[in-house]
């Protein structure tokens, strides 16, 4: 098999986007959607067919030299190794399902050309991130997904609020991109190349201070894309986009790009113990923060958005503990169950006629058992119900932290465990409020189109059975993913069976505790708590207001200052002042030219006096 064929994986979505961009308006709506779906499916199929190329060290392929100047040289080259291959497969598979779902979801929308062009373009950019073998191509994908996310969040642009949410996402993630970009410049200055493999190979030659700084910069970039503290404020607002977009971009793929970046550069990142601790800390704090916010949200998609932030925090925490395979494991299971949850949520919104507020829902189980069971499958994975995909992957992360028997990592483990409990609580709160009891208001729901129904069961199967990807030996598994990743899998977890059992039992206990708490509240029909704390959590700890006051207003004030004072008064003022001085000087001089003979004679006399005086002074 030729390595060049690997570029087909990238080419199909790009061609799909181009085809729809140029011809989409001429095609039937169904054909448009079919083109988009086929492009992504072809990409997934290519990935499967070329799977053998990923074995061992993987395969490299170069297309052409993108930029060359002086010592700087960057090609469009990709690396298909176990890490990128498994990620590619996940991205293309989930994308195919979500594209299919979107074909149903967008059935009644106008302007679907734009939607499918952007969706295909997004998959292309995401695959660039995944497959890139140099940081600049990765950066191309990185910014590309940022743009697609921007344009898709604001897809319903006629409402100012949606477009503003897209803009916020673009700007906040771009702040993170700056850190990543600086790391990129620095790495080139240090290593003389941007090839990821070469950088990873040379990393051990760098000083510890440099490594720490680079790790922190990369972490900054990852925080932006993955919506981690402190660059997380954009993700909840991003839910303004159509639901398939939330499922694809803001749950399954793009938000995990930051985690993937750190995994890709793990050989470099892992050399800095302090940097690793920072990654773990950011992950743990984000996970806890987001889970606490999810407890109080009222919109179904916002609950899921905070939950995504929290779960990505778990992945970061895994990277920080050195367990790349655990991070990727959770990334995959999360992609399956979160995409499922979002798509099921889309069905819920469809059934309730566009309602988003869970306090107005209820009783949907009777109305649509199909959606209920599929949503429940996703929710069980999220809450960590025993033997579901989410259970194994979350457990492995917590185990990896616990096994690093230092005080810091035990603290992180404790935070993670608390988050696990909160996760079970907010997940069941969501399930109970949407599906249990009687409807709290009357809806004019729509029927579910076919594609929206039958794309859910395959995802549910993937989500529930996701544990098989990397089943630990404790349960008789062989850790396939860990084995497959080989040297890329990160540090091995060393823990005794007793500890593993203890943690597993604790996890099960927390799951049931969370369920029991919610169930008990529901039985008592307790009203939603009101007061300062829920309001605080609902507003995401008032992070938006903090950003508004701390950053946006100073930015605008400074901007105004630059304009009015800098350009206006200082520069133009000075110059216009000089101009006025010339004018008034001229005006005064003009007065001398009165045309009266007496003035001229006086001037002549004075001139004579001055000249004579000068000569007299010279002679004397």
């Amino acid at each position: 098999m030729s390595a060049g064929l690997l570029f087909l994986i990238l080419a199909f979505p790009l061609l799909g986007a181009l085809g729809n961009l140029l011809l989409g308006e001429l095609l039937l709506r169904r054909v448009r959607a079919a083109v988009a779906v086929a492009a992504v499916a072809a990409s997934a199929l290519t990935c499967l067919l070329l799977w053998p190329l990923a074995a061992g060290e993987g395969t490299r392929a170069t297309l052409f030299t993108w930029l060359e100047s002086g010592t700087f040289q960057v090609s469009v080259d990709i690396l298909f190794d176990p890490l990128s291959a498994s990620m590619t497969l996940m991205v293309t598979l989930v994308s195919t399902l979500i594209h299919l779902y979107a074909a149903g979801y967008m059935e009644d929308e106008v302007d679907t050309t734009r939607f499918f062009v952007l969706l295909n373009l997004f998959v292309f950019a995401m695959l660039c991130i995944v497959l890139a073998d140099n940081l600049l191509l990765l950066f191309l994908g990185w910014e590309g997904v940022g743009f697609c996310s921007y344009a898709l969040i604001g897809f319903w642009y006629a409402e100012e609020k949606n477009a503003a949410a897209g803009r916020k996402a673009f700007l906040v993630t771009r702040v993170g991109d700056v850190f990543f970009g600086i790391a990129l410049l620095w790495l080139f200055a240090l290593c003389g190349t941007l090839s990821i493999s070469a950088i990873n190979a040379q990393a051990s030659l760098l000083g510890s201070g440099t490594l720490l700084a680079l790790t922190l910069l990369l972490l900054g970039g990852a925080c932006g894309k993955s919506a981690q503290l402190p660059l997380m404020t954009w993700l909840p607002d991003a839910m303004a986009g159509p639901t398939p977009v939330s499922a694809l971009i803001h749950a399954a793929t793009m938000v995990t790009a930051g985690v993937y970046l750190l995994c890709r550069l793990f050989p470099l990142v892992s050399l800095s113990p302090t940097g690793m601790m920072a990654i773990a800390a950011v992950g743990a704090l984000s996970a806890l923060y987001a889970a606490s916010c999810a407890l109080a949200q009222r919109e179904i998609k916002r609950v899921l958005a905070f939950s995504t932030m929290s779960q990505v925090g778990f992945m970061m925490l895994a990277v920080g503990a050195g367990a790349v395979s655990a991070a990727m494991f959770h990334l995959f299971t999360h992609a399956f169950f979160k995409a499922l949850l979002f798509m099921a949520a889309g069905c819920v919104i469809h059934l309730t006629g566009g309602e988003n507020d869970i306090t107005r829902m209820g009783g949907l189980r009777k109305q649509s058992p199909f959606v209920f069971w599929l949503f429940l499958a996703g929710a069980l994975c999220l809450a960590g119900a025993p033997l579901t995909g989410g259970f194994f992957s979350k457990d492995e992360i917590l185990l990896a932290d616990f096994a690093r028997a230092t005080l810091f990592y035990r603290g992180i483990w404790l935070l993670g465990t608390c988050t696990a409990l909160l996760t079970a609580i907010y997940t069941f709160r969501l399930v109970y409020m949407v599906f249990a009891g009687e409807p709290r208001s009357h809806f004019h729901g729509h029927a579910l189109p076919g594609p929206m129904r039958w794309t859910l069961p395959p995802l549910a199967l993937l989500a529930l059975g996701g544990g098989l990807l990397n089943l630990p030996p404790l349960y008789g598994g062989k850790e396939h993913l860990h084995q497959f990743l080989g040297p890329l899998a990160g540090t091995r977890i060393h823990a005794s069976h007793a500890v593993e059992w203890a943690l597993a039992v604790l996890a099960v206990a927390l799951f049931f505790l969370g369920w029991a708490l919610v169930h008990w509240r529901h039985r008592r029909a307790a009203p939603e708590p009101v007061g300062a704390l829920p309001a605080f959590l609902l507003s995401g700890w008032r992070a938006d207001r903090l950003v508004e006051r701390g950053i946006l207003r100073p930015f605008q004030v400074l901007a105004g200052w630059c304009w009015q004072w800098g350009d206006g008064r200082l520069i133009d003022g000075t110059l216009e002042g000089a101009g006025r001085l010339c004018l008034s000087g001229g005006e005064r001089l003009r007065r001398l030219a009165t045309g009266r003979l007496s003035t001229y004679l006086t001037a002549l006399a004075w001139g004579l006096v001055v000249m004579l005086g000068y000569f007299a002074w010279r002679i004397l």
Partner: protein
Amino acid sequence: MTEFTHIPWLSILIFLPLAGALLCLVLWRREELCRWLALAVSWGVFVLTAGLFAAFRAGGSGWLLYEDHAWIERLGVRYILGLDGMSLLLVLLSGFLMLVAVLVSWRVRRHTGFFFALLLLMEAGILGVFLALDLVLFYLFWELMLIPMFFLIGVWGHERRIYAAIKFFLFTLAGSLLMLLAIIGLHLLHTAAGGAPSFALDNLRGLELSPSLEAWLYAAFLLAFLVKVPLVPVHTWLPDAHTEAPTAGSVILAGLLLKTGVYGLLRFGFPLFPNAAAASLPWLALLALIGIFHAAWIAYLQPDAKRLVAYSSVAHMGFVVLGLAAWNQTAVEGSILQMVNHGLTTGALFALVGMIDERAHTRRIDELGGLWGKVPRLSFFFLFFSLASLGLPGLNNFAGEILILIGAFQTNPVWGATAFAGVVFAAAYMLRLVQGVLWGAARGALFWPDLEPREGAVLVVLALLVLWLGLYPAPFLAPLREPVADLLNVLPQGGLP
């Protein structure tokens, strides 16, 4: 090959638009004819520049084409034109953007003949600036481009056109008069040192100057060039001039006139005064960095779409100057490439704002909005060029910026890192523009025509170039390699501060 190089291509390049301008003046009563004449001439010039580019795309050291004739013998003034890889690229850009300028001015109704005559006259002046190698000849062309622009703004401009035109004229004239003094001074010093009277660049280079004298003469040149670039704090003429100029004027101002400043520094300022230039690099970098943020901040607040794009120009030119100041192969190549990139994207954005203005009769961002629903094709291009302008990878501005940033970081990490933060600022103001113009609810129920074929053709070609330069800039970097390498040897100690 010898047959080919015996034809005075460079003179043809300059005199063709000059002849076209004269014809337009003679035939000014027949407006339709003038319009087509201008299109034919600018098309001819573009074909010529494209042919030159195709012939010399491999680049090479030294002059690719050279013409030298005696002119004013008593003063030693000669008519010297020369083309190297650097001017090749800028000449190509001029040929192309002039064609664009003619096409976007198709609907000019007032004094059409004079309008196109001035455009062609300016083309001659700009091409002359990029080709002249004798300082007097250079100065002549330098002023020749100033005067048509003054009238373009003053006669065909918008509401505050007189203010803007005079401001533009005074700023540039103040700079260039000082440069004239410095040119004469240089000539006299050269003669006093025993040389034959001459204004030729090659003869005046390497003249022994005392440090303070060199600094003063350099400062005079620098001021003239920096006003044109423009660099903060001598940039305030630009927002007014751009905003008030007719669309073609804005396209040429942003696309070409600004580039003559940077070109002048590279061709004359640095080689004539290498020591002073080397000492000035850190200061240039400082001003460039201030400019990137200062202009971006101001751009963010502008209520007028055209003025916002104008300020974005200042920020982008800050990147270009930063690349010069970094003074290594990657950064300087990036700077020159970025000049081409900026010419294309900003030119396209000005053209688009002009097209919107023709339909909406307003350029105020708060009076626009929801254009995507009304004119989707126009909006698509608006979004596309805005993305190019904010430096989305894969589009042209990113290619130039990343070269500049990589180079700047190697020279001084703080410069590179600080400038990178500028991309957030760029995103902030560009997205505000896009938000205000394209998104939101559509205002007014009036029907607007979407792009007509003439407009569409211009934008499609520009968009394809944006993609080409963004994805495969190698053909445009190749002719730069050797000229830039030669240039880098000009300054002592490689310019590292």
